[in-house]
């Protein structure tokens, strides 16, 4: 019998106006994509607090996707730029924790881009599958090391997050 393929669990945060509608469109158009992504609706990609990502990984997700409107098309004018800035810092922190880059992904998808979103999901699932399970909760000790690290990171983020104009 063939070895069972590793099926990663990926949590995706989709903005209400573009990406969630892209997911709707992918559905309406019956575009099949890998079932490993479970989606959460937020109003804007700018709402995605890095601790959401860390929380998802800490709870056992193997990867996290953040999807928002294209730069310049944000329904809240420019909040996706903030998501973008936050994302690069998030990646930086995850690197510091020894996490592979491909486990997190920032994806632009307009309401018309069902196909693109589905493709991005497929690509990401393949990448994460190739990386293997993250198993953060398992790999780290039970004595709250993950939680502590997350807390520390969240603090760092908060400080570096936004430079007032």
């Amino acid at each position: 019998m063939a070895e069972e393929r590793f099926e990663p669990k990926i949590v995706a945060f989709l903005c209400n106006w573009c990406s969630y509608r892209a997911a709707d469109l992918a559905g309406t158009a019956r575009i099949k994509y890998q079932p490993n992504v479970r989606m959460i609706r937020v109003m804007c990609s700018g709402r995605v607090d890095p601790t959401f990502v860390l929380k998802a990984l800490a709870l056992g997700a193997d990867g996290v996707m953040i999807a928002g409107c294209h730069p310049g098309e944000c329904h809240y004018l420019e909040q996706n730029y903030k998501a973008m800035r936050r994302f690069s810092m998030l990646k930086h922190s995850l690197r510091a924790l020894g996490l592979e880059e491909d486990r997190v992904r920032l994806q632009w998808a307009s309401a018309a881009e069902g196909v693109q979103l589905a493709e991005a999901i497929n690509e990401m699932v393949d990448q994460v599958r190739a990386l293997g399970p993250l198993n953060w909760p398992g790999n780290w000790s039970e004595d709250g090391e993950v939680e502590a690290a997350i807390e520390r990171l969240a603090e760092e983020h908060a400080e570096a997050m936004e430079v007032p104009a």
Partner: protein
Amino acid sequence: MTEKVGVYICHCGSNIAGVVDVEEVAKWAGENLEGVAVSREYKFMCSSLGQELIEDDIKNEGLTRVVVAACSPHLHERTFRRACANAGLNPYLCHMASIREQVSWVVEDNEVATEKAKAMIAGAVNRVQLHEELEPSLVPVNPNTLVVGGGIAGIQASLELADAGYPVYLVEREPSIGGHMAQFDKTFPTLDCAACILTPKMSDVGAHPNINLLSYSEVEEVSGYVGNFSVRIKKKAKYVDEELCTGCGICIEKCPKKVIDDVFEAGMGYRKSIYRPFPQAVPNIPVIDTVSCTYFETGKCKACEIFCPTEAIDFEQQDSYLDIDVGNIILATGYDLFDCKTIPQYGYGRLANVFTSLEFERMCNASGPTEGKIVLRDGVTEPESVAIIHCVGSRDENYNRYCSAICCMSSLKFGHLVVEKTDAEVFSCYIDMRTNQKGYEEFYERLLEEGMNFVRGKVAEVTDAFRLPGEEGKLIVQVEDTLLGIQRRIPVDMVILMAALEPRADAREVGLQFGIACSMEGWFTERHPKLDPVATMTDGIFIAGAAQGPKDIPAVVAQGAAAAARVQGMITKGTVEIEPVVATITEEMCSGCRICNTLCPFNAIEYLEDKEVSYINTALCKGCGTCVAACPAQAISGAHYSNEQIFAEIEGLLYDVISGNGAKAPQVEQEPVPA
């Protein structure tokens, strides 16, 4: 948890049930998920019977929370919220899981789909228990409306509202309303004279008791929110007293300074330094262009002042400001024309007899620079042949990707005018003929009958480098006739470039000023491309006309009227509900760091100097949540999208990983804990 959650799984006919084992999921949710009191599946949850099912359970079983696993919340969230409200449950205590769009329609394997549906329902059940009762707030709507832009879209919107009895402020940047339409000669496909159908509407605007026409004015500042905007308008100095001026035009006649009119006449004709763009201008009050005026240049002249019979000329006039309060705003700021010089191979600006579409419009206009005669740049020679080039700057990745929508029909109109007014042969070089509105295809047929030559191919270049017999002294249009598969060199006397429609150069700034978004190209973004085409994401701000995207006059007029109807609806209702999905700051937790202040694009966050904390004006807040995510003290909470709610949803979604009982959970060897 003490909440009693009802879970309702929709079959959606076979749309969901054909893939997801709904019975199994309902059973599983009822047995396994904490807090679930009732778990049912039903053929069509959105039907009245389906809704009754929920309402009955709320009443009879005492449900305090509802989860509906069905289609996307964008379709039926309102439906189920209403059902909850009917049964006396706060509508915000209901949550949907999209197991159709995100599961049954996109997952192939039934077993895997069923598992994914379970995870999503687990997430929803977890989350909904932390939901809070929310109440939309009500604010009154000011019955005044601001319309920005006095083209045909703005004119239509203003008249609709004014005729319904509501006050309108119409702001126009130029000295007269009329917009691009006032520059045209005929309109397709009926060949109505543009001026004949437009000017009556313009005079209606000028004379309407409910319309305050602010020409030669611009919006300086906008603040407030739906129902209650405050707007500051700059009235640029006209140097003519509007009260005294009778519009007799003697000043214009006597002004000794003639300059090229780059705006209305598209550089083809002249105007005086004191001018109105065209004879039927509304208002008919002239303005002085200080850049070219001799008096402003040298301090001498004053011919206009000397001859004015009513002493209306006022060289000392200054820009003035007007503050108004309005309930709604309609943006109808129109479009710019693509600069044809950007495509050097078409020769515009280098080869004299290459014209832009707007130049040709002016040329055809009986009151235009050539009095309606179609002539070459020398002003006298009638062309023997004319080529019309489509898609100049449109449908081209190097310039604009989109189709400009009106050029095919305009070029047919031009072809007709050439045939009607001259003996010239006309060539139309097109990629695809797009004639898809009422009467358009018939007009295309008419031009075929009138003998217009159609060449299917995008023109590669226009050159004066002659080579073959018959080319000398001509403009040669080099193009592949793609239907024949040969390269053609068509010698003509005149070339007309059908320039693309582009967003206004300042569209992004205007968008920011009014708090609405632009597409990548710069067109204003509508709330929904199909179902809500004139509203924007900012409540109380509507868009109409070509500012939203290229479109022809009938579509523009329809949008102007539609926007007005939407505004009327708001005014008639009198109050507006404000979504309770907003952010709030817990004062005690706020450190006053002000990080959030600069993050809000809607200026909803202000800093209270006395209390040294930040404060969110919930009427301005649009609920994006960026400040919530950024607050280092976690003093800001986002209603309906709180950290706790989202954490709970994540936890639910990953239930199978966490508890290790998921059918597909990865089995990995436990590695030693790093030291």
